């Protein structure tokens, strides 16, 4: 049959049909009719019949989901109900050991799963219903993808017979998540659920971590099943196309060792991969043996205790000048688990012009993607560093004395600028870097600090003072505003025993502040530090410097945040002067549960230095309009 676009509108031929479902009388049409009835809850469904005694019902697909999560050692997930995922909510009560957090928006749920994963190393789980529930998860899935965070996102979908018919709340969510997940699945048969869920967790956590999306039709959630959960070995064996390379190639390691032996000005670049691999000890030992300073990316914060003599600092667009200088003058970059993002390199043509590059990454596709490298090594950061350690010659302290001394000079010079030890910015208003530093200090640098996006994110990474891995959480790759509060919620449920602080700008805070209610209802002890400059600060900064002061839409009204917090039932306090900062922080720490600290900070403070887009690491802007940014 050929249909032209015009023909497609013609009425179907007539037949003696009793049903309006196309193709009536066929098996397919019967399935569609049944599915339609189920969507309307007109009975005839396979929902397990509940009796007073729970134990007596059948095991259905929804049970498999709960079992699979628990088998992964995950004890909490973040979700929101809806029509097609109700079968799951129907059985949740039978799994008291699995904590369900009812978020106020699915995006918050996805970020919470992400925050949970980043601080625990376990896989974070979020769920939503079909259609809008699923699309609301998307920003969070994308955030996890760009930062390689292991998250399993589960969505319900319409009954399988209705797929493709634009049923109520049907959207091709698999098509949407395809380019932003490590892998995704659509499951229409409950018997497949144990295998698919086990694979999803395995893929999310193994090799370079990342999000996996599992879409499950409503009928699969309701279908009775006896399918058993596979073992880890079975799962790995069933995925022949997924065999991450863990150990580095020996020949490449030897080449790397030779590069190290030749280098006079080596710099180690530590990225998120170091934290993913848990390679902090190996990194420190390696740096100490070869006497090389360590610089870190935004997501590499915490790879080394910042007090360590070889911990040199945060690199890149808003990194420290001395760090970028060291990179620009290095003769060898040892890049470990980082991907030479444009925020790190600036203009690649002028990046580290004297350096040869050894690049270690677990994902071969990252090597040679943004910069050409001399020695590629594919492998897990921990395994590679452990193997490399005995292969490199120890460099005695004297061997690097002149180099390290010069680096120390540069550091003193650059740390002396852009700093407001007094706490007051130009007109006496509160300076943000001071507040961040105070939060670090009063928490003994032992808390988990979850940044949002914008100036607050950069101040946090620069000034809080990090000592431990996985205590800094930030949306680096996607730069998702509104990340901080929900991600902190997940981090706080990770059972790390650490205090959790959400550091957020007023713009980002207003994007996801509905989760305040979740924090209050579930008594999740997140301390929120709201950096209120009444601006989209980073936008204002770019407009000031790059767009000749055309401040369109940079000014942002906010509510009275004390009243707002009160309305949510959350204790809150406000600080506007340097001498109020300590008390405000202590107040929040003293609250048993969530609390908000509203810091009214300077409205026009910039984050310096700054590398303008398209420029190189040697083109940092350090001042604008005044000496004391």
């Amino acid at each position: 049959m050929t249909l032209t676009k015009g023909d497609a509108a013609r009425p179907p031929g007539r037949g003696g049909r009793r049903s309006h479902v196309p193709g009536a009388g066929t098996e397919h049409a019967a399935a569609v009719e049944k599915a339609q009835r189920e969507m309307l809850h007109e009975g005839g469904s396979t929902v397990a019949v509940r009796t007073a005694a729970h134990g007596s019902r059948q095991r259905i697909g929804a049970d498999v989901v709960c079992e699979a999560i628990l088998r992964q050692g995950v004890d909490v997930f973040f979700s929101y109900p809806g029509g097609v995922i109700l079968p799951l909510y129907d059985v949740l009560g039978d799994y008291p050991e699995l904590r369900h957090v009812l978020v106020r928006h699915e995006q918050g749920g996805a970020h919470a799963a992400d925050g949970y994963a980043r601080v625990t190393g376990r896989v974070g789980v979020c769920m939503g219903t079909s259609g809008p529930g699923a699309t609301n998860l998307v920003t969070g899935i994308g955030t996890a993808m760009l930062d390689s965070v292991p998250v399993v996102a589960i969505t319900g979908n319409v009954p399988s017979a209705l797929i493709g018919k634009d049923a109520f709340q049907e959207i091709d969510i698999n098509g949407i998540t395809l380019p932003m997940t490590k892998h995704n699945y659509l499951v229409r048969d409950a018997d497949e659920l144990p295998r698919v869920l086990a694979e999803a967790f395995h893929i999310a956590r193994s090799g370079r971590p990342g999000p996996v999306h599992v879409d499950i039709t409503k009928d699969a959630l309701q279908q009775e099943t006896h399918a058993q959960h596979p073992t880890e070995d079975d799962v790995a064996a069933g995925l022949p196309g997924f065999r991450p390379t863990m150990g580095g190639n020996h020949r490449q390691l030897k080449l790397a060792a030779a590069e190290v032996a030749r280098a006079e000005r080596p710099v180690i670049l530590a990225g998120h991969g170091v934290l993913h691999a848990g390679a902090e000890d190996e990194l420190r030992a390696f740096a100490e043996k070869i006497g090389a300073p360590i610089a870190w990316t935004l997501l590499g914060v915490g790879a080394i205790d910042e007090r360590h003599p070889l911990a040199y600092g945060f690199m890149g667009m808003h990194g420290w000048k001395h760090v970028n200088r060291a990179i620009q003058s290095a003769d060898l970059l040892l890049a470990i688990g980082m991907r030479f993002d444009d925020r790190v390199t600036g203009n690649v043509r002028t990046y580290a012009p004297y350096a040869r590059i050894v690049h270690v990454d677990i994902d071969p596709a990252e090597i040679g993607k943004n910069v050409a490298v001399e020695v590629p090594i594919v492998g897990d950061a921990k395994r590679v560093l452990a193997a490399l350690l005995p292969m490199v010659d120890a460099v005695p302290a004297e061997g690097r004395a002149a180099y390290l001394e010069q680096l120390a000079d540069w550091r003193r010079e650059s740390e002396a600028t852009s700093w407001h030890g007094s706490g007051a910015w130009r007109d006496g208003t509160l300076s943000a870097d001071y507040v961040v530093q105070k939060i670090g200090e009063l928490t003994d640098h032992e808390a988990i600090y979850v940044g949002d996006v914008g100036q607050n994110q950069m101040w946090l990474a620069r000034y809080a003072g990090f000592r431990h891995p996985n205590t800094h959480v930030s949306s680096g790759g996607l730069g998702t505003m509104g990340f901080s509060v929900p991600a902190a919620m997940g981090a706080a449920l990770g059972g790390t025993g650490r205090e959790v602080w959400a550091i957020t700008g007023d713009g980002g805070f207003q994007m996801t502040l509905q989760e305040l209610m979740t924090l209050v209802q579930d008594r999740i002890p997140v301390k929120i530090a709201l950096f209120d400059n009444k601006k989209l600060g980073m936008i204002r900064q770019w407009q000031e410097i790059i767009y000749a002061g055309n401040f369109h839409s940079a000014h942002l009204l906010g509510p009275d945040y004390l009243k707002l917090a009160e309305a949510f039932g959350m204790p809150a306090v406000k600080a506007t002067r340097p001498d109020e900062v300590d008390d405000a922080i202590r107040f929040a720490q003293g609250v048993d549960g969530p609390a908000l600290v509203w810091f009214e900070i300077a409205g026009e403070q910039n984050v310096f230095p700054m590398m303008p887009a398209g420029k190189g690491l040697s083109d940092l802007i350090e001042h604008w309009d005044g000496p004391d940014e």
Partner: protein
Amino acid sequence: MSAEPTASPDADPGAQDAPAPDAPGQGAPAHAVPPPRALPGGGDQRLHRLVAIVVDKPGVLNRVASLMRARNFNIDSLAVSRTDREGLSRMTISLHGDDVAVEQAIKQLYRLIDILKVQDVTGEATVEHELAIVKVRVTDSNRAEVLKLVELTRGRVLDVAPDALIAEISGTEAEVDNFVACVRDFGIRELVRTGAVVMTRGGASIEEAVKR
């Protein structure tokens, strides 16, 4: 794939940037201005043929196509079929790009869970074949000429009508191109090409190399 605009040093303003102020031998001004760092890619563009063995599952083609689009690789042609092994499909992907860019494409393909093996057979000894079916406009006066041409190019006539004939040609992409160019002047009413499929010569087998 399309050429990276920044690949040409002249087009890149960064290339003229001053040398880094902190040369390794600080204070020693003799240090030469370093050349701009080489960007990956930017080499000579040529046609590459990739053979991929993939898990035969719904959606795999979509994943490959989506990845190539999202990563800015331009596929010239893509031919997909089953193999004789249960659960394995084969794709022949033809794309233009420099060697580095194509290597990137292969690495990105390997990130897909359903991709088992990818081989760039460009420059290897291969047999390569493509099939085209062309509906050519003919008249009584030129029919004989077209038939002769089809014969000379080792094509085959599949259908004859008063005002058209359908010819089939198979061969390398260049041979097919050549045939199409020859009949173009008569008027091509319809053309369909399968895209190239290739196989390396000799005993080596990409299917047997797949670990399962």
